[in-house]
């Protein structure tokens, strides 16, 4: 899925009286379909905000965001929901698994939303969990998993419905180096086999090395 940002700015306001904080300032960016782009920058540089705008989680204050041919910044909430449901997979720094569902149910969640037949869900969940090395953890609850395992479940959930776009926000930021490496290998492998567009925000140079190219952000602007 091709991503296009045209003169995008984003401001945050604590409340109506407080002054606006310019998080992104006139950013334009093109990411071709099937690319693996890495967003790098210091804390507060605007990486997560850019990811949120691409993922249709937030709306730009100014400018346009396109996913494929669709201008997401012009869509209403229900269409954005459908877009996220079918076309995007998210991986977060803090894993963000649904605490009340077990591993298999968490992974199956995106398929459940689109009313996929149960048999198909079971087959796909088994395949994906096998692929991330957690076939033996199907019935466990998130609270019973290690950090690395939780992130692998999160990746499995992000890819099970084969979205054309995967967004990862500091996927190794909360893991030790061994688990971090394992997760990066998994993401690289996924990109190589399925060729989705991947946008990954990270601090880590090692993580950045697995992408096709790096987009550097500084004070809300793109450096290169």
């Amino acid at each position, binding site marked *: 899925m091709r991503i296009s940002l045209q003169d995008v700015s984003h401001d945050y306001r604590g409340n109506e009286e407080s002054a606006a904080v310019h998080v992104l300032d006139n950013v334009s960016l093109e990411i071709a379909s099937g690319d693996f782009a890495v967003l790098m920058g210091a804390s507060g540089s605007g990486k997560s905000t850019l990811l949120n705008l691409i993922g249709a989680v*937030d709306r730009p204050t100014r400018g346009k965001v396109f996913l494929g041919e669709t201008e997401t910044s012009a869509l209403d909430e229900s269409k954005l*929901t459908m877009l*996220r449901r*079918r076309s995007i997979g998210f991986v*977060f720094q*803090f894993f963000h698994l649904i605490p*009340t569902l077990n591993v298999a*149910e968490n992974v199956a969640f*995106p398929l459940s*939303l689109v009313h996929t037949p149960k048999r198909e869900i079971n087959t796909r969940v088994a395949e994906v969990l096998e692929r991330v090395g957690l076939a033996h953890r199907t019935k466990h609850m998130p609270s019973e998993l290690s950090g690395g395992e939780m992130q692998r479940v999160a990746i499995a959930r992000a890819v099970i419905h084969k979205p054309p776009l995967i967004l990862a926000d500091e996927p190794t930021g909360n893991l030790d180096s061994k688990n971090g490496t394992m997760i990066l290998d998994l993401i690289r492998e996924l990109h190589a086999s399925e060729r989705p567009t991947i946008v990954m925000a990270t601090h880590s140079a090692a993580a950045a090395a697995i992408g096709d190219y790096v987009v550097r952000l500084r004070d809300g602007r793109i450096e290169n």
Partner: protein
Amino acid sequence: MNRVPRGAQFSILNSQFSILKALVTRPISREKTRSFLTVLGIAVGVAVVVAIQLANQSALRAFRESIDAIAGRANYQIVPDAAPLDENVLLRLQPLWRDGVRFAPVIDAEGVVEPSQLPVRLLAVDLMSDLHFRDYRYAKIDVNRFLSLFRSDSIVVPAPFAKEQHLAVGSPLTLNILGRKRTLIVRGILEASGPATAFNGGIVICDISVAQRSFSMAGQLSRIDLLVPDEKLLTKIHLPPGVRMERPSRRNERVEKMLRAFRVNLFALAGVALLVGMFLVYNTVLISILRRRRDVGVLKTLGTSPRQIFFAFCGEGLIFGLAGSALGILLGYALASGILTAVGRTINTLYVASRPESVVLTPAVIATGIAVGTLLSLLSALQPSLEAARVRPSTMIRPGLQQPVRNSRALAIASAICFVLAAITSRIPPVGGIAVAGYVAVLLVVAAFSLLAPMIVTFIARIFAPLLQSAFGIVGKLAATSLPASLRRTSVASAALSLATGMMVAIALMVGSFRETVRIWVDQTVSSDLWLRPAKGLTNAPGAVFRPEVADELEKLPFIADVDRVRARTIVYHDAFVSVTAAEFNAGRDIPMITPRKARPALEDALRRNGVFVSESFSIKYNTRVGDVLELPARHGILRAPVSGIYRDYSNDRGVIVMDRKLYVRAYADTAINTIVVYLKPGITIDAARRKLERDFGPKHGAFVVTNGEVKKQVMTIFDQTFMITYALLGVAIIVAVLGIVNTLSALILERTRELALLRVTGLSSHELRQMIVLESSLLGVTSTAVGLVMGYVLSWILIYVINKQSFGWTISFHTPVSLIAASLSVTFVASVLAGLVPARLANRIALAAALKIEN
């Protein structure tokens, strides 16, 4: 121990304020909706208690003030055990005049104004000597002819009464007192002060000779008022048998004693709303602690003592309590006037005639409202505050902290102990006529069910999970799994709604059973064709009577098979009011008996031995059995009457003694009749007989003809009016409980912000999110209704067989009013479903990007 220096004391206070600000006041002002819901929950509970107290006070204050206004400055009264009092008693008092003792003969009788049937009180006094006792300020009087007040047809009326009845000096007014109608002339109008204010001004005053002559009371008095300057003089007063001396306040005390069970029951119902409110505070403080656990952990790490944390969260309970109490008192004041009409009507119909006055918010009521709201809120906050104080800082800071529910086995054991204790307690006899143990048993049952709440919520969620999943897909699954995941909070909300529903079902069962029992009783008791009454309605006011000749005349009519002359009066028995009813006993009468089973042998025994029947409530209150001999105050001393039978009677809870009319007339020298029960000859239609009786007896004797069907209908109307307030109070409890669900689910939304944002980001639509939250509230509704239904049956058993029996002495047969219970449960369920809409709106307002930044 060293004293803390003054500077250090300020510093301690200052640091406590800082902690309070960080943990309590700032979050309260930030989470406005939730804080408002909690305050509103407590306010509604307090409002009900305040309103009941105000209504009770106002309803009785009118009566109490009337008695005081009529008593004037009298410090003692001479009263007969069985009215009337012989005026010769005055002769015994004459020698005491020189010792400074003043006495005033009084006739105090109830009657009605004709033809409007307006209830009125006749106060007849010696207008000359009565000035020692009461102040009469004349607004208008025929000044040229002051002595006209003493003419044989003169009366004096208060100015407001005169205005209401369009009376002026010289106007005629027809009074019906003790079945005698007389037209008297208004010769003076009093200012609204002193005795003229009694009974809301519904009073007519005349000279005692006028009353004795006009209403056939020659030589008779109601009482003698006394002004005794020195208590020692009391020993010099020698009274004949059947006459006693007491303070005027004694009558008020007796009336209050008679009403005690009724009032305690109302307060107990108001307590349900408050108890539900307590769950709300408990949950709010618990949620506050859970939401601020990290802050608590940080403060503890920085050196805040457990005691400071404890006081901070207790402070939260206190703030909610104070705010809720203040709002509750205002709401209660507004509610009171509505409740007053219902309470006043019940007191009037079942106990004493009293016109309720306007509601007055006294300092005592304000103090009660604040004390009840604040103390109970503080009490509810204690346990969660202690928990916050005890937990180690590391546990509080650790991410993903779950607040586990205590060992479910321990909860089950505690619940079982509560059930066993409730069973034991329900067998303890009443204390001073109040079913204290019954109320304790109710609390124990409520505690037992509340302890089971976590297990029940988990169980129901597990049962419903597959069903919800198949009906609503992943949304249903998420809803079913989220409730057990936040068990501490959801189980408290469920327990609160279960309690409100349980009480609603219990009351519906009790009232439904009682109604059915009364309906069967009325069907069995009212077997005659027509009733002839001297007044509208079913009141047995002593003033509304026929003279015996009316029944004699009636008996001669060709279409009448038989008549029964019924007379009722109130006497003082064991220093309490009981009713004595006279009816014509014959062995063939059908009476709903308790002991013996059949009426015939008991009636034969009563006729043979001059025996009496007592009502079930009388036999329970005075521990009376068949064969016991009652000593009743009668006209000429004590009447010793053996008890021949105990029968069912739901007409009042004071206790009724029924005797044959011949025995009654002998004992009380009273031939008046309250009701003439008419049996028609076969083939005579009720309508034809009624028309004829209305034509011949209506204008002539001021009689009203009531059919059998109308009597039954009126009894059931009175019954329904009496219990209307009960439903209203429980409705309030349901509102509080629903507020609890809204509050809990809203708090859970705040707590699950990140999780809900994640669901939205991964594709859950806003409609599906709303559906999920409404399903959660529906599941809480299903749990609470199911538990409420079971709890309701257990509680109704205690209400019917323990509390009702001990408070009023009535046996009620169990009956399930299916449609009423179905309606109650539907109301609760629908309310809980709708309660989910508020938090659902909240959930859809979550800023997704910001929420996802929150760490676990």
